[in-house]
């Protein structure tokens, strides 16, 4: 018997398996059916894999490995069908060739698997994914909340600013109408004076607004070693008039001399805290202001303490730092200073706290 089909189907006088040795029909069929059953299962698996690949083609990692597995399983299945066929048709060449091909495919699969293994190990488990998702969600929620706060801050700012601009304009409207309807020189003079007041109020408000806007968008370029005593000196110089009227005794105690910070920002903070102490002094006693710095748990602190009017914090703690809110109306003020200080401090990752007692004094402490 010479080669037909490249010798694959030759049987070379080998006996079919049924007649090779003593098969009982029970043992023989047991063997054959097991082979067929394995083969069928092996042929079914690739269909399932194929279906899976088609359905998940967009997000399935390592698709090539899946195809390799399909081939591998088909090849294995074929070996079992041929093995069963050997009972009648002893084509051992064919069987050997298919085993050989299966061997190659199997090794390709092994190599392929080893190659993707490190990457596959990186794949996140569902739990890990869920943890990631929930952390991200938390982060998103937090930043969403922050954005909402900023948004509502901005809303309040716009309404407050428009209110503060509108009031003097309304007033001017009314004053001008009054002016038109009066012949009385004295009344007219009074009204003119009030119109001037309203104009300067508008100007003041606009200045305040632009200073807030400036602070919101300052990119500090003046960061460096800033000395607290220098900054305090500058602040006092800029408020000579106020200092002369208030005649404060200023006690400086800078346990920490300097800080790596923006000069302008530190000055704004110090400016607001010190001028507040100067403005809201008590008429009953000489003003004493203590400006101190100290270090605690790796943070630098600045505190400004006065013996002035003080604030009842039980009801006003939250209002204290909000924009355009004021607690005393006997001195000029815009209700913007502490709002800005809080903003500045928080922008730099610090915070500000306050302790106060009515008619005793107030202490602001900034943690850098």
């Amino acid at each position: 018997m010479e080669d037909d089909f490249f010798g694959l189907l030759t049987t070379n006088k080998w006996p079919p398996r049924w007649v090779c040795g003593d098969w009982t029909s029970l043992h023989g069929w047991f063997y054959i059916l097991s082979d067929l059953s394995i083969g069928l299962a092996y042929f079914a698996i690739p269909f399932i894999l194929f279906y899976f690949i088609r359905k998940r083609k967009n997000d399935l990692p390592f698709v090539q490995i899946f195809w390799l597995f399909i081939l591998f399983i088909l090849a294995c299945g074929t070996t079992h069908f041929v093995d069963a066929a050997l009972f009648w048709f002893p084509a051992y060449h064919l069987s050997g060739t298919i085993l050989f091909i299966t061997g190659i495919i199997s090794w390709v699969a092994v190599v392929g698997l080893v190659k993707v293994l490190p990457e596959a190990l990186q794949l996140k488990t569902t739990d890990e994914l869920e943890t990631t998702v929930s952390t991200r969600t938390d982060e998103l929620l937090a930043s969403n909340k922050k954005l909402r706060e900023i948004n509502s801050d901005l809303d309040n700012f716009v309404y407050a600013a428009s209110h503060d601009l509108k009031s003097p304009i309304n007033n001017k409207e009314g004053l001008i109408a009054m002016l038109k309807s009066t012949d009385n020189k004295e009344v007219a003079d009074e009204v003119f004076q009030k119109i001037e007041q309203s104009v300067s109020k508008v100007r003041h408000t606009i200045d305040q607004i632009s200073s807030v806007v400036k602070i919101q968008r300052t990119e500090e370029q003046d960061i460096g070693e800033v000395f607290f005593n220098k900054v305090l000196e500058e602040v006092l110089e800029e408020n000579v008039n106020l200092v002369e009227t208030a005649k404060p005794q200023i006690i400086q105690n800078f346990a920490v001399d300097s800080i790596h910070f923006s000069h302008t920002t530190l000055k704004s903070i110090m400016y607001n805290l010190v001028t507040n102490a100067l403005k809201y002094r008590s008429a009953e006693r000489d003003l004493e202001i203590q400006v101190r710095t100290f270090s605690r748990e790796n943070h630098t602190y600045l505190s400004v303490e006065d013996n002035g009017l003080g604030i009842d914090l039980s009801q006003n703690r939250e209002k204290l730092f909000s924009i355009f809110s004021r607690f005393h109306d006997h001195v000029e003020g815009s209700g913007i200073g502490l709002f800005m200080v809080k903003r500045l401090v928080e922008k730099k990752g610090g915070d500000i706290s306050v302790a106060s007692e009515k008619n005793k004094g107030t202490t602001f402490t900034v943690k850098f």
Partner: protein
Amino acid sequence: MPVNRIILVDDDEISNFLSISLIRKIDPEIEIIPFRNGKEALDYLKNEGLSKRRSNLILLDIRMPVMNGFEFLEEIHNSDLKIKDFMRVVILSSSDNPRDLERAKSFEVLGYINKPLKEESICTYLKLAG
């Protein structure tokens, strides 16, 4: 009983000057008592009370230092002052913040006037309160 006393609570002096001139022009008989903030007005109301023989109208600004309009209304609401039963309040503010309007509605106020105070609006509320 027609309104014969107006309690004006506003920190804006010029606005008060205008409101007072306007009310005087409408009815010179009405007594006007101005306060610069809610706290001053509240202290007055606590001490003097609102005389029953007088019919009062309170014109109340919202944004004021020390005690703002809402805090004033809250204080009155939570107090055991008798006046809260027959107190008539009209908010007089230049705020156009919808939140302020919402909040104003949560109190029992007669109305909300957006500044400037005009003759017809004050007349309307004088009639309503009277």
